[in-house]
């Protein structure tokens, strides 16, 4: 039987979290594979935390932040993208596909877009397959 994949999504407290609650209000689907963690800013998710997610068995990690000009903290999304680019280099050395780690940004009303992107991401990770880290 095909093993169910595990996706971790770090959602920034501001626009992305509002999109996420909007998804609930509008009855938009949230894929069961996605585990959501709410953080105060997408920039908080640095390389060690991303590596930890993969170490603990995540097959894909989605970091969701605000749009660049809409950040409450100034340079959050810019920092997040830097962290992700840094982590991509390490994933490459480890032989893990870079698609397993992605950054997305939204405005507060874009619930439909977030829902679609989550489903698309889950599909993409399913196509790549389980991560080799904890594979039996």
């Amino acid at each position, binding site marked *: 039987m095909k093993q169910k994949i595990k996706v971790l999504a770090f959602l920034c407290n501001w626009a992305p979290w509002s999109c996420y609650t909007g998804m609930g209000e509008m009855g938009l689907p949230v894929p069961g594979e996605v585990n959501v963690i709410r953080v105060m800013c997408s920039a908080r998710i*640095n*390389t*060690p*935390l991303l*590596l*930890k997610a*993969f*170490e603990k068995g995540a097959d894909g990690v989605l970091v969701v932040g605000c749009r660049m000009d809409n950040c409450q903290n100034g340079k959050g999304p810019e920092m997040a993208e830097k962290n992700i680019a*840094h982590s991509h*280099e*390490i994933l*490459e*050395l*480890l*032989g893990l596909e870079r698609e397993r780690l992605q950054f997305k940004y939204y405005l507060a009303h874009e619930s439909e877009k977030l829902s679609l992107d989550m489903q698309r991401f889950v599909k993409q990770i399913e196509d790549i397959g389980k991560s*080799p*880290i*904890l*594979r039996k």
Partner: protein
Amino acid sequence: MSHPNKDLEHIIKETGVYQCLDCGKCTGACPVAETGKVFSPRLAASRIIEKGDSDPYVQEFVWACLTCGRCDDRCPSGVRFSDFVRLLRCRWIDSGKPGVYSHGGAMLSLMRMMSSPHLRQNRKSFLPSEINTVSRGKVLYFTGCLPYFDVFFKNLDLNMVQMAADSLKILNRCDIEPVVLNNERCCGHDLFWAGDQRGFAKLAKESYEEIKDHGVQEVITSCPECFYTFKEIFPQVLNNFDLKVTHIYESIEDRLIGRSCDSKLKPLDLKVSFKDSCRLNFYKDISQIPRKILERIKGLNIRETSGSQIGDICCGNSAWVGCGGHSKIIQMKRLRETLDTGSQLLVTSCPKCLIHLQCTIKDFYSGEKLEIKDMVSLLAVALD
């Protein structure tokens, strides 16, 4: 009287802590205590015998120790404090409590990931085309964490994969064409010292199997920690371990120094100072080789620091455990000693010394004319 806690009793006996005479030589030698931190191995020993390891002083002690082994070296009763600390960390981790790690535990995460048998790494991409390596053979060059350090510590501009390339260049000059594995797994030194026994055992097994699959009989390392782990720890955890373990300095001494190519070493007009590594200090004959190599390079003005006569101090951090104010003080002190000798270049023998000291140079001594380089990189320049 026996200790109420059986496990703890075993650790205390095993590492000889009951033999502590309370003489204080350990505290006198300890680089952490020297920074002014209230930190004493003998006090921790007596507290643990009296109150167990839940005592707050002991808990702080366990994660602040550098495990550099300076106290072990000085102890007249043969207490193995570093090992004592390591076993206490194992107890801590086994009880489910999180350890105190630097860099968010990223390096330890990488090591745990590398223990997955399904992982197919891509770590050989740095290899320059002029280096000769083979895909199967008797001798292996163990790159260690260098490709990962290179990416993770990019902000330090150390070009750490160049160190691996330089080591391979030297090995080629020694007429050795080694195997370099694309899917090499870490030696696990840091997991071992950070108290993750299970993680280490798993990684050691995978690492050993990966090496044996390529018909290897001898492992050459340029990292003192990999050398120590392969030589001392692997035989303890792997029943069938039968690899010969060589440090690159031994290969250089056997095959380069004193031979004809020795006279072809390019002269370098530099004032240099050498930084010993704590793991290589366990091997007195090997730890002296770098100085012999430096003496062979004409034009080098070797300046010893005031502390080097009594054994070099640690670079302030080990096994990615804790990195606080006292680590910085140790690093600043070591760099100040180097600057006081008038050296332009600090030559290190361990990649971690290179990282930690470069970090402090960037933060505090960027105005000074002090560069830092690994021994193999310096020798590679002289061999050009």
